[in-house]
């Protein structure tokens, strides 16, 4: 008896299948939902941008009359920020933490993930368990502080990224990705006499650009935004990264007791706050489009293994 083949329904229908009314309705709901989401994200972002261009003599800090576009543009806040030695110093420190952190984290995560992806590794199950335990049970702030202190990392930029240089979550994603690479490729390299390091360097890594970029981005974002570790471990104020300065700016009252100028000159403090938020987000905003193409590929490939 011939079975009827059901047409697939839903958003991800093939081009050959004509979408039904239900598909259209579903797509409409999804589109409306996404538009709503876009508005939720875009409105505060736009509000921050317009606020950052608020002119000096603009009175009040709500958006009246300036929602769609400022009626008068001023780059005073950006000029003040970029001209401020503290901001430049903090930005530089953040860049150092970002680069140092991403490089260190990848250098440590890749070999660990690769080793864990080898099914024949003796004690692999226990090693996995050892890695997952601290993921589930966090050691807490005080033991971490004691460890960092005893390692002599207080007042070193490395204190910000070294304790979190291997994220279990990122490591597991990368391990899954490596497991998805056909074993035959590794076998053939081994038959040709390659060592495990050569297999990793010459076979695995060239095939893993997507996951490296993705995990690198994960690490990058977390190091760039890390306020807590920097606050805890960096006593030398010359080492303070951008999130610390940003928080100090955001906490600023805008009311200097003397002549009402803030540390950034006579630019309005609300504009300074908005500009600093916007500028601190710029590096990540720039990085995302370049890495986005790897993003879905990197995370999805790792999630499906045959």
């Amino acid at each position, binding site marked *: 008896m011939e079975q009827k083949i059901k047409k697939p329904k839903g958003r991800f229908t093939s081009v050959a299948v004509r979408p039904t009314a239900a598909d259209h309705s579903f797509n409409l709901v999804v589109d409306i939902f996404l538009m709503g989401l876009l508005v939720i994200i875009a409105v505060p972002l736009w509000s921050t941008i317009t606020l950052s261009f608020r002119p000096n*003599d603009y*009175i*009040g*800090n*709500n958006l009246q009359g300036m929602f769609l576009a400022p009626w008068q543009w001023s780059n005073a806040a950006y000029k*003040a920020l970029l001209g*401020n*030695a*503290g901001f430049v*110093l903090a930005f530089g420190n953040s860049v150092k933490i970002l680069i140092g952190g991403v490089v260190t984290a990848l250098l440590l995560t890749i070999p660990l993930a690769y080793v864990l992806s080898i099914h024949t590794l003796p004690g692999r199950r226990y090693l996995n368990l050892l890695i997952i335990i601290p993921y589930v049970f966090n050691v807490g*702030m*005080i033991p971490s*502080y*004691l460890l960092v*202190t005893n390692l002599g990392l*207080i007042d070193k930029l490395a204190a910000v990224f070294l304790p979190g240089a291997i994220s279990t979550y990122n490591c597991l994603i990368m391990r899954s990705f490596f497991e998805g690479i056909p074993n035959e490729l590794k076998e053939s390299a081994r038959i040709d006499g390659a060592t495990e390091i050569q297999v990793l360097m010459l076979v695995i890594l060239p095939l893993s650009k997507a996951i490296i970029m993705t995990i690198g981005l994960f690490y990058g974002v977390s190091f760039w935004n890390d306020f807590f570790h920097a*606050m*805890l471990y960096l*006593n*030398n*104020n*010359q080492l303070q990264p951008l999130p*610390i*300065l940003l*928080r*100090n*700016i955001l*906490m*600023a*009252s*805008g*009311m*200097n*007791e*003397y*002549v*009402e*100028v*803030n*540390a*950034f*000159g*006579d630019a309005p403090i*609300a504009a*300074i706050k908005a500009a600093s938020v916007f500028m601190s987000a710029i590096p990540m905003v720039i990085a995302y489009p370049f890495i986005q193409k790897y993003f879905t590929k990197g995370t999805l490939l790792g999630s499906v293994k045959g």
Partner: protein
Amino acid sequence: MKRTCTVCIALVALLSLVSLPLFSQGTADQAKASGPTTIELWYGAAITEAGPPPADWVGFQIIKDKLNIELKLTALPSNESDQDVKVQAAAAANNLPDLFMVRRDVLTRLVPQGLVAPVDDLYEKMPIRTAKHYDEVSRSHARFNGKTYGLADPGSITKNEGLLVRKDWLDKLGLAVPKTTDELLAVMRAFTFDDPDGNGKHDTYGYGAFQEINNYEAWPGRRLEPIFGAFGVDGTWNMTASNAGLNILKPEFFDAMSLLKQMADEGIIDPNWLAYKKDDFRAAWKQGRFGIMREQNAAFAATANYAPFDKNFPDGEWIIIDPPTGPKGHASIGPYTAGFRIYAISAKAVKEGKKDKIAELLEWMASDEGYYLLGWGVEGVNYTKDANGIPVAANLPNPDLAFSAPGGQTVTQLRNMVFYNGDIELYARYPKYITATSKKEMSALDVLRVMQTKKWTPAVGSDTLPIPNADLKRFYEQGLSEFITGKRSLTRENWNKWIDEFKRLGGQDWNDKGVAFAKENNLLN
């Protein structure tokens, strides 16, 4: 082979013997004795968004040359809870700095752990500083079990707020300055419904506020204290010996709530007051949105703060009025307490023999040299003195380095360690000026002096009383706001039920503990 091994072992043993003193504590101590004493100081920055003093700040060299102290500075985070986390993490690792600013709540936890040292003996060693900074109230502020564990330096100026009313609106509407709560309500109604700005729109309100709460000014907080003061229930606590306890448990609190509810129902308080943040509130009065408010002297009258209002309303005028008198004759701008910044000395620093050096450093800071250097910078570079000897930011070769300019602010980051709200500071802080548009003479200091003459409720120490747990606090704040917004009906019966529930959830316990603490520490008036 055997011989080679023996030679190697002998060499290692010899090397160990030679190198041992290099790593021993004894050698390091000897080095310390001859060199400067390092003092690590975690301070509260005067201007949070400005950076720390530069590495080549002249103060470091002066302190080294004169006191033989190598000062290592760390600015604490601007947020109080971040400060607490940093201090507590260092405490847990027994890694507290030698001298550090700490909130009283945290100090309370550090004392029993033996991590901070008593400072009672330091007062005698710092005669100049003690005379200017530490009175009996200050000493008792950080006293636990008869010993003082922190140097409580003067904090913000007290009684620096006032009840202000738009005099130009009163004049336009032919109204007198309100003296009682009834008159205040009448003025609020007129400001709301009689178009005091004459623009033909219903865009003004009587009273403006926002929720600004703290340990001793619970919901609805500081901006509405004059309303609650008219019923004798301003502030979280009643600090009188005869009637001590939580104000919310006093019968008059219901009357005050009823008045606030009436203001909300009649629409004569700016309806945005529950949503406003500080900046919104301040923007609103500068835009002429309401005509009565409680505001801080500098936030109202300092140059840049007043300028937008001056530009918008050149003929506008705010006057400071007495707080309105309530039905039983009570009146108050609000409670006042003595704000302190506590600097504690770690037990570790004392163990390392640094206590006297710390006293020497603090005493030097209070000397003329330290006071001006830390308060305003270098004379001729960061400030000059006017004819009265007051530091001013005028006639400087590089105005960008003035103590009040962005370039000079970093060198005055430690000023809170030397300021004690003396006249020189106040004159320097609040100079007289002529407004740009209306050409009025303004002085935030004159405003301050007037504000301080008004009736306030003494509540010194009320900010140190126990605080409720998070659930009780939420119940307190949410319940009161629901009565005002109408989510709960404000009737005597409902109020009593809600108060019973409040007591059951821990309110009574909070009250009893607070009263016991106040009695124990002689805080009641």
